[in-house]
């Protein structure tokens, strides 16, 4: 009760638009801290989990086939295969075998087709 009253006096309201109507309201921590949406780039192969690159099988400029294993990422006691999503060429390799990578680290970049 005490808290609510002081909040109202300080007028901390933000605007929130729903169905073209602007509402005066408080926002939650979860709402204000949410991350903006970023569309995925299929050419950027990223570590989906933090771990160690145990093997990298390709080099810059190499042609690869869809489904081909390009590298091995060891994480959670599993040897995870990073595969080519389509037929293309390797544009850049950003890791070497033995590298530790954090989540969403770009491992290999592919040429757009």
């Amino acid at each position, binding site marked *: 009760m005490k808290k609510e009253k002081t909040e109202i006096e300080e007028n901390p309201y933000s605007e929130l638009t729903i169905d073209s109507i602007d509402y005066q*309201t408080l926002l939650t921590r*979860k709402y204000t801290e949410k*991350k903006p949406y970023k569309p995925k780039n299929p050419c950027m192969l990223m570590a989906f989990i933090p771990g160690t690159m145990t093997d990298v099988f390709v080099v810059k400029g190499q042609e690869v086939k869809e489904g081909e294993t390009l590298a091995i990422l060891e994480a959670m006691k599993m040897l995870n295969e990073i595969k080519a999503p389509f037929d293309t060429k390797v544009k850049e390799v950003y890791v070497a075998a033995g590298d530790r990578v954090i989540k969403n680290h770009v491992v290999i970049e592919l040429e757009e087709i």
Partner: protein
Amino acid sequence: MGIKQKTSDLQRRMRDALMGGGEQAIEKQKSIGKLTARERIIALLDPKSFHEYDLFVEHAAKDFDMDKKYLPGDGVITGTGTLSGHPVCIYAQDFTVAGGSLGWMHAKKITKIMDHAMKLKVPIIGINDSGGARIQEGVNSLAGYGEIFYRNTQSSGVIPQISVILGPCAGGAVYSPALTDFVFVVENISKMFITGPEVIKTVLGEEITMEELGGARVHSEITGNAHFFAISEEQCFDQIKDLVSYIPWNNMKKAERFPKKAPKTREYKIENILPTDPRKPYDVRHVIKSIADNSDFLEVQELFAANIVIGFGRINGDTVGFVANQPLVLAGVLDVDSSDKAARFIRYCDAFNIPLVTLVDLPGYLPGIDQEHAGVIRHGAKVLYAYSEATVPKITVIMRKAYGGGYIAMCSNHLRADFVFAWPTAEIAVMGPEGAANIIFRKEIMTAENPDEMRKQKVEEYKTKFANPYVAAAYGYVDAVIEPAETRRMLMHSLEISKDKIVEVPMKKHGIPPF
């Protein structure tokens, strides 16, 4: 040995067992603001009502030199007692004994008292304070957890299950509280997580403190795993006592009836709470307090998804569950979290014969990619499911906005509300006037000489025609349009006459709710 000697032998054995982990361990426990397990039970239950069982249970582990270790009571205290004069079963893990770790006999003590609670049809209260599985006992410790989880599930909806987290509760152990009805946490004391900060650091390289990862505030505000947040163990026990005054002792009973008391209308004047501009916020808890007996309202999950308010109050002396959109926060929208929060509470009330009073004022669902991707469809569906499924008396009051899907979801006539009342300020329509005018009069607006002027005109037109309670009332979707000041009187009457309500439900094992 004569009886005297035998008695003194018993007393010696009890003294040893009651010392738990010994003076040093007890001192350590107290130095961080924690009571010991036995002190906690005594502080919570009625004075002198606690009776302990299985004090002499010992662990049966043999590997890793465990056979040479004596663990008093095997690290958990179990027994029965009373709360406000009513019987309860209770257990409390004793962190001073082997870190309250859960071994097979420890688990057996817990499951034994849980079985008692089910037989006697009384609430079970579990006080969690444990480092986790007793690794030396291997798979037997996992078996212990599994036996507890199974019983939690079987007891769900039959007897109230209350979890109190007064220490660490990590790994598999967290699933017992998660399966129970209400979880109580205390700031700086409660810690709940599946994988702790150390594992996260070694595996992910991310650093975080225990409090930030799974402290009381996190679970109260972010995850929604906790239902009641306290800043001390004492306050936590008061919250539990308050809660049990509102709920029935099992699913065959009704909550205890209290003497009827008028709301504090001088403090909470129902006619003055709602701003006339529908875009302006207000605190819906004031409306609840203007209706409830003595203006008493016990809010559940106060900090989590605050855009919907849930909790217990009394009308005419009987417990009701309030579900209310909160225009003060996120304009009172339904979203993933608020849907989860409301749906679970509705199912709780339905399971325990508590009538539902729904107060409606929402603009609809929260728009956003994050919401859609988080599955607002299946989460939102839970509210529809829970209200449709509930057979307790359901009374709805539409105070202001009830647009689109939100109108249907908030216990509308169509989901079988027994009575739907609307205030004259209600706006029941397929969508908000602005949005509706933009669609219906798109051509007129686009071809007009002054589109903005035309839009304004059409919005006004739509508002006067449809943004009111009378269109819905004309179809009988609203049972009565009432003055706000009449709300409590209408609720008292409608709850009274719905008391012996019977709904026939189709034969089924169980439904498939959109969990």
